[in-house]
């Protein structure tokens, strides 16, 4: 049985797909999600092998969800869309397959065969994900979408990952690694990412360490290891 997660914001579309997927008898449905944030959590906890992923969803679309997933957790992906303007793009992204709504059982069977073959061969999904346009953050009961350009710095502590902007500090579920790889933010210490546009000054110490002062006046530590990269990037 292939462990799948279904992600679609529309209830009827979700139910219909669940029904069709169940009928094939080869999938174990781990659950279905209504949005990208919820989906990211489920992917971390359930570690599905395959996603049936709707492209058009509120706040964060299917492509954006892929950009939020860590490489080692990346499942195989089958896009599901009502209108094929995205179909071509989905191919370019080298997703496994794509289905057009309404989905016919016959077409779904082809997808099933493709998925089985890929998994049998043990191919790892390797998608050319986009860079992140938004960093989804928890804010009271809402999801706040922060564009990377608005970020001062990001740090991790035992409670999780915190995004600091001029407006305040927000909690995100994305990992520092994903954020480092898919945003223009730079790593300056094991627990810190800094927006190079927000650096006001860098203080160098004798012991090879350094400190960054940001535009709004925060001080960030710089470790030996990342100082070199930072210098190269800033052409110092």
């Amino acid at each position, binding site marked *: 049985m292939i462990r799948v997660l279904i992600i679609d914001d529309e209830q*009827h579309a979700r*139910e219909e797909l669940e*029904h069709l997927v169940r009928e094939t008898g080869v999938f174990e449905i781990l659950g279905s999600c209504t949005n990208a944030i919820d989906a990211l959590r489920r992917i971390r906890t359930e570690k599905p092998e395959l996603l049936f992923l709707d492209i*058009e969803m509120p*706040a964060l679309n299917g492509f954006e969800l892929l950009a939020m997933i860590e490489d080692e957790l990346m499942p195989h992906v089958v896009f599901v869309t009502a209108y094929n303007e995205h179909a071509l793009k989905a191919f370019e992204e080298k997703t496994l397959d794509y289905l057009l*709504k309404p*989905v016919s059982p016959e077409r779904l069977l082809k997808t099933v065969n493709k998925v089985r073959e890929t998994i049998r061969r043990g191919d790892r999904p390797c998608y050319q994900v986009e860079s992140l346009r938004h960093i989804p953050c928890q804010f009271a009961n809402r999801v706040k979408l922060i564009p990377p350009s608005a970020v001062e710095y990001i740090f991790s502590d035992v409670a999780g990952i915190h995004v600091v902007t001029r407006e305040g500090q927000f909690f995100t579920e994305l990992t520092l690694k994903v954020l480092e790889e898919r945003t223009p933010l730079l790593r300056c210490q094991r627990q810190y990412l800094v927006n190079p546009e927000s650096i006001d000054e860098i203080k160098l110490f004798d012991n090879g360490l350094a400190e960054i002062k940001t535009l709004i006046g925060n001080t960030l530590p710089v470790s030996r290891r990342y100082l070199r990269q930072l210098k190269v990037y800033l052409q110092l």
Partner: protein
Amino acid sequence: MTLVFQLLQQTAVIIVIAYLFSKSPAMDYLSGARLRPRQLLVLYVVFTLFSILGTYTGLPIQGAIANTRAIGAVLAGLIGGPVLGLSVGLTAGLHRFSLGGFTAFSCGVSTTVEGLIGGLVYLYLIRRKNPEQLFHPLVAFSATLVAEVLQMTIILLLARPFTDAVALVKVIAMPMICANSIGAALFISMVRDQKRVRDKVGARFSSKAFTVADRTLGILSRGFSSETAREMAEVIREETGVGAVAITDRKEILAFSGIGDDHHHAGNPVVTKWSKQALRENRVVFVNGYDEHFQCPLSNNCPLGSALVVPLQMDQEVVGTISLYEPKTKLFLNINRSFGEGLATIFSHQLLRSRFEEQKSLLIQSELKLLQAQVNPHFLFNALNTIMAIIRKDADQARELLLQLSNFFRTNLKRNRDIVTLEEELAHISSYLEIEKARFGERLRVNQDIDSALLGLQIPVFTLQPLIENAIKHGVADLLDQGQIWVRAYHQDGLVVIEVEDNAGNYSKPNDTQGLGMRLVDQRIKNIYGSEFGLTVDCEPQQKTLVQVKFPLNEELANDSCFNH
């Protein structure tokens, strides 16, 4: 004193000549505008002859000539400037010199000086930016007076023997000064009157042209057809007073109005050689009625005798003609001739404009079609997907939705009319909304608040649909929590407002390829009702987007009792 009267008698001859002059084409040169060399030459010849005539009609007195030569020289300077004055004075002076007598030399010099004086007055008034004063009789009177006084002085200074000169001046000074000054003043006054009459005719002519242009502008903006041609022919005939007016396209008569309409009918082919020539060579053809007679090819008893055929152009291409006719019993007025030619130019511009308008509206039509084609696939596939899911659980609801879907597409296909009532537009979007409500479930709530008195309001088709589609596609569909849409119609301050609001507040200014639907809605309303109406967007980010469409209140609705509270 007898001499004064005798000279004045000669002045009468001059006046007659002045009268003839004022009726001649040379009169056109006295417009007060800068004269061209050719015109100066004509004036030189006219005034020189005039001045020499003054010498010949003079009376021989004591070996000299009492004359009115000064008038021509002074007026030449006054009207044409110092160069013309000097030339005329010099020529007439040389002529006088050739006639001999003891004042021959002094008279020759003084005539030249008189021309120069007229020229100096001209320069003075032009520099003072007062050129209309040139045609004031008092100015001519004074200039000639000064000139004649100067002439007498020159005779006294130059003519020998001096005693003879004194005796002569004693006799001729008064009569010549009076006669020449009065003559010049009369001449100018006559020219001025004639000028005024012409200006008045010109003014009447312009106002007539404006009236025709004004009356036909609206007609032609509906295009060039037999219907608009008929209305135009009527207007032109009324305003010009010609016997008959015909308008043709390249092949046949579109409209005929006036004398001879018993055998000249709309729908007849273009047969006269003059019309064909105008069409072929793209130029004005004039059959004046005496050198060449207009010969009606249809009837020998046709009362029409002269014709003016003017080609109508659009984009340098001849699309038809306008013909003005006069009966055999009447001469073709020159004024109507230039009028007809002017009209053709105006009409050609108007035709171009109306075609531009037509193409603009065609463009909107095709964009509208594109819009319909663009929106539907996405909506259709999502709708079908939703219905397929519902079939498994609730066959009745699924059937209901399929009906709504077919309703929506049927009205979409049938909507070829430009204007529908608000009620029809609401019915159309309600099918759309029912399907979207099924698709989004709890996530979409629609609230309607429509003033029922407005249900009969005439609005352009597809006014509401793009607004609703946007509110769902870019509003509710992008919200994680519940989306709400409000559809309202009410009247306020003499306006009708139809608005669609959502609680997403995701509106961003569209770029060129986006927002086509909204732009079309706005454009069409502005085209129909004027630029003060149309669409406005008010967006509070993350709170609401409010799109308002403003219409004028239809008259029949305004009179409705519902509005009189």
